[in-house]
């Protein structure tokens, strides 16, 4: 992989009072690359995503997007720079329609202010109609079934479609980096397979898009990411291809416990 680095974190540390949730974590993400992030519960995976997206401000260290320092900027501004995300427990706007959810994802690409909305109606409406158009095309591309349901409230969707909608909403902001927080959680094997196909299709369609995926499902981790970053107790344990990483004893320990690892090796 020799594509240019798009997102980079160095020395990221996050302290909540006395608790160190993350200590000196470095990572790089290249254009078009998929980086898998694994680790046991509480390892700091979501913390890392929250730091990148501006929900947390790191205690020290910095995040750079194409060389520009991001940390310290509010979450809503970071989206505009080109980082979009999904959430572990899907956080859709449940009482709004599927289409509205995606249109809201285009917020940073719309300009209507209060005076435009009230006094220059045709301009505001044209902008919204354009966003609705783009959102419909995006939904169609992500999933035909989802597109058919675009006028239903998002809360009524089944789990797999909710995750798809989250991805569509994140893509609506036209990100350079897409962060997926446990996209397969709560899915059965068939849904996970469909999700993996969706992500592959997405990469084929957007070769420039870089992705970070937090995942527990090892089938997904084994097949999708180019590289895997292992976190444990807020520290980086290992980094490399899945095949390399899974053989490292400390990684096995973190997942299986020391005893089990020894038994497995014996």
């Amino acid at each position, binding site marked *: 992989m020799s594509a240019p680095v798009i997102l980079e974190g160095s020395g990221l540390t996050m302290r909540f009072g006395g608790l160190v949730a993350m200590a000196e974590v470095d990572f790089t993400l290249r254009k078009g690359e998929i980086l898998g992030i694994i680790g046991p519960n509480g390892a700091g995976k979501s913390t890392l995503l929250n730091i990148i997206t501006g*929900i947390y401000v790191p205690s020290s260290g910095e995040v750079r997007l194409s060389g520009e320092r991001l940390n310290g900027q509010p979450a809503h501004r970071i989206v505009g720079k080109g980082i979009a995300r999904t959430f572990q427990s899907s956080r859709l*706007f449940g009482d*709004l329609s599927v289409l509205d959810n995606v249109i809201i994802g285009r*917020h940073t690409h719309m300009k209507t202010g209060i005076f435009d909305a009230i006094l220059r109606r045709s301009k*505001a*409406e044209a902008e919204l109609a354009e966003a609705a158009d783009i959102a419909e095309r995006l939904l169609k591309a992500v999933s035909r079934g989802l597109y058919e349901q675009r006028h239903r*409230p998002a809360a009524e969707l089944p789990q797999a479609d909710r995750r798809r909608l989250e991805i569509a*909403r994140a893509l609506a902001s036209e990100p350079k980096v897409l962060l997926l927080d446990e996209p397969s959680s709560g899915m059965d094997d068939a849904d996970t397979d469909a999700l993996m196909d969706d992500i592959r299709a997405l990469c084929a369609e957007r070769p420039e898009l870089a992705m970070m995926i937090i995942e527990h499902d090892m089938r997904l981790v084994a097949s999708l990411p180019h590289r895997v970053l292992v976190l444990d107790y807020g520290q980086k344990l290992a980094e490399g291809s899945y095949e390399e990483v899974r053989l490292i004893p400390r990684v096995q320990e973190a997942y299986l416990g020391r005893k089990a690892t020894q038994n497995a090796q014996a």
Partner: protein
Amino acid sequence: MSVSVTATRRTSGAATALSIVALTEIGSAAFLRQFLLAEDWRVVVGLLGFFAIVLVALQRLPTVEARIEGAFSAQGRFATLLGIAIVLLFPFLLEKSTYALHLLIIAQLYAVLALALNFQLGSANIPNFATGASYGIGAYASALLALNWDVSFWLALPAAAVVATIFGFVLGVPSMRTRDSYLALVTIAFGVVVHQLLNNLEFTGGPNGLVGIPAPELFGHSFASPLVIFGHSLPSQANFYYLSAALVGVSILFAARLHHSRIGLAWNALRADELAARCQGINATWYKVLAFVVDAFLAGFAGTIYAFYVGFISPDNFTFLVSVTIMTMVIAGGMDNTLGVIVGAFLLTMLPEKLRAFSDYRILFFGVTVIAFLMIRPQGIFPQRLRRYGG
């Protein structure tokens, strides 16, 4: 052949839609007229029962409801024009009852206030208990301008709205440091502070308030004199009826345009999930402050009209209870539904007046209404609708 059949079907479909719209609007107006002119409490209760039956029937028969909704969206222009015509003609049908007109004016002002609060409570889920205070600030600002500097009503109107807006901004910014119940507490405190200031400051007239606010004039016609149109004389209240109706129209326009724009979507996103909204690029603080500002702006207008209508204001017109009343209207009518909020405002303004026997229990009535709605029908009389996009 088939073309002409489709064409005929289309025209007959349009004709049906037109008649559905006309029947609904004229029927509602007739109902409102009967309700306003009813004197016997049994008639009032009977009419209310009828209203309830219609609502329940509509809920049970979603196809009928969808049909009516479809007709209104297909014939939107006709519906608006007929609605305006009905509003214009309505005072002529009230048998010169000044009381009915007075009730209508107050109901319309409350409708404006409820629509203003709806931007916050309905669209963005911000519990603001200070709408009554913004209303009072608008009223006092315009009254003081008129009394001290002889500013005409037409200048005082926008000036008072600007003053109220500034206060809304002043309230909105510190409120952003808190959320949920704490935010509600901050707004309650703001309302109490405003009330206390009005009560204790010298230039606001203290508890006695401001007296002798002059009636507005337009092209030499004083709003205190009867309105004569084509030889028909209407009581002087008709002037203010038309004025407040125009303000309701402006508020509806505001509501519709903001709802169907990036701003309305951002408010709805904040209501559903603030963290997810921020991660879509929505500046939560800015949009919440904006909701405060729009609320205060419209409330300021309503306050001015109220002050010039009654000609006398005192701090007790703008207590915490006024804010609670407005909130009740939004909750009962239907959060984030313009029609619902207006119906809620009309119903809750007129009911206590019509059922005089209960007027001592007004607050109890509002309390019971809120509890009943939150338990039985939390979405209000008319629930919010999903947005539609052309085509």
